[in-house]
């Protein structure tokens, strides 16, 4: 295969193009087929709607030295449980993570493209984005997804991370059109978020350590699973537990199944004796 020089040079970045450190923009130009299509037409057919996989409750809690982000493992398709082991928490880079709720397919793609976006920026510029910058970029990706949200393919992420420059942990919530809201102490999204929020509001204390924050997160997911049919509780038979990750100055770290199981047992124990 031979190329003409112009074809090869077309891939070289032009210096004053502000989009040139964005992976999403590069993908749009170099491989437009790989970018999620913008649908047109009427609302989605009910048969199709019922076959789409939905992910549910994810939440985040701020601690004194970082943040905890957690999600249950259930995915539903219409009134059926589609999966009991889905992952809804994804590391975005070393110091941040994104939790997804909504239509699973595009939501997982959003998490993947966002992680690539952060890495791409860091490599091209030589420095990572600020936490504020990362959260803004995610809002842009949700906004770009708007045409699909209009079809009912709603994706609502939750973003949590630590700014490596200040060591401060922050949580950002989004709405389906890309609205971005900074949460002061905790946040939850997805169908079980109402129940989870109630628990979080009651139990979150300012300045707690990461371990306490993780325990509160597990308890809130437990309540969400009890109130919401689309949120899964811990599966003790198959040992499938919620994914709980903590982020501090050392970076993103997922709790092991044993650690999460211990938090689950504490919660069960407290309730049994109530």
């Amino acid at each position, binding site marked *: 295969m031979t190329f*003409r020089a112009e074809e*090869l040079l077309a*891939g070289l970045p032009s210096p004053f193009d502000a989009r*040139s450190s964005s992976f999403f923009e*590069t993908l749009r130009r170099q491989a437009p087929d*790989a970018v999620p299509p913008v649908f047109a037409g009427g609302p989605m057919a009910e048969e199709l709607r019922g076959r789409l996989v939905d992910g549910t409750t994810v939440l985040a809690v701020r601690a004194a030295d970082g943040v905890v982000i957690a999600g249950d493992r259930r995915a539903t398709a219409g009134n059926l449980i589609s999966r009991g082991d889905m992952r809804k928490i994804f590391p975005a880079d070393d110091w941040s993570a994104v939790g997804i709720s909504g239509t699973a397919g595009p939501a997982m793609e959003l998490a993947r*493209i966002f992680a690539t976006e952060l890495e*791409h920026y860091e*490599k091209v510029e030589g420095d990572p984005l600020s936490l504020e910058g990362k959260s803004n970029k995610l809002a842009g990706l949700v906004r770009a997804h708007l045409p699909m949200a209009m079809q009912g393919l709603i994706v609502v992420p939750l973003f949590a991370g630590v700014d490596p420059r200040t060591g401060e942990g922050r949580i950002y919530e989004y709405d389906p059109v890309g609205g971005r809201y900074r949460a002061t102490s905790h946040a939850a999204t997805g169908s079980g978020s109402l129940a989870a929020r109630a628990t979080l509001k009651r139990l979150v204390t300012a300045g707690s350590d990461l371990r306490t924050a993780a325990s509160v997160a597990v308890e809130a997911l437990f309540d969400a699973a009890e109130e919401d049919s689309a949120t899964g509780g811990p599966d003790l038979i198959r040992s499938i537990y919620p994914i709980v990750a903590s982020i501090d100055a050392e970076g993103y770290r997922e709790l092991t199944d044993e650690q999460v199981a211990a938090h689950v047992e504490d919660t069960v124990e407290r309730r049994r004796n109530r």
Partner: protein
Amino acid sequence: MATPFYVAPEQFMKDRAEYARKGIARGRALVAAEYRDGVVFVSENPSRSLHKTSEIYDRIGFAAVGRYNEFESMRVAGIRLADVKGYQYAREDVTAKALANAYSQALGAIFMGGEAKPYEVELLIAEVGHEPDGEGAGLDLYHIIYDGSIVPHDHRFVVIGGETEPIEQSLQQQWTPGMDRDAAIRTCVDALRAAAGRPIESDDLEVSGLDITRQRRRFFRLRDEALRAAVER
């Protein structure tokens, strides 16, 4: 009627090659050397923000000498190619070989007359294996020069850029297989110092590389304390 201006193809190529070589020779050399767990890139570079080496992808690193604006745009193009490919297929499908081929094609096309002048750059693309297997890091090095040729090397170290010969000679005597990272860095620094005939402060060095024992993204860059500790033992 004016006679059309004619230059024999041989002469045309020779002139362009000489032009590119002279441009590259004006800059300082860069050394890449294999060590037990990967590869180190060592060069003299007083700038703390403008780098000659960079991460391209999980297991792939980039080093260049020559004209900064030219290799910088090629570096970014490489990151784009790798990220688009890794996103569309899988992370393990991104290879240094494909990247080296792309650079070779691009530099070749530019050299053959696509541009007013050839690029004055030499590139080095390095890749370590997937997992440590106890027998080295599975290092691949691709040395691509201004006309798009990929230069084969027998040795497990490569010197690119300016005055390469004295540095190569020094490395031939000092480099040994199975060295640890800091020993490899010191060997490279000694070679650079010997060739330059003057001391080079560790603050004036750019040291980075790929280490197979790291998680996922294997590229590392040594700065400040870590750099001084590695260079000054």
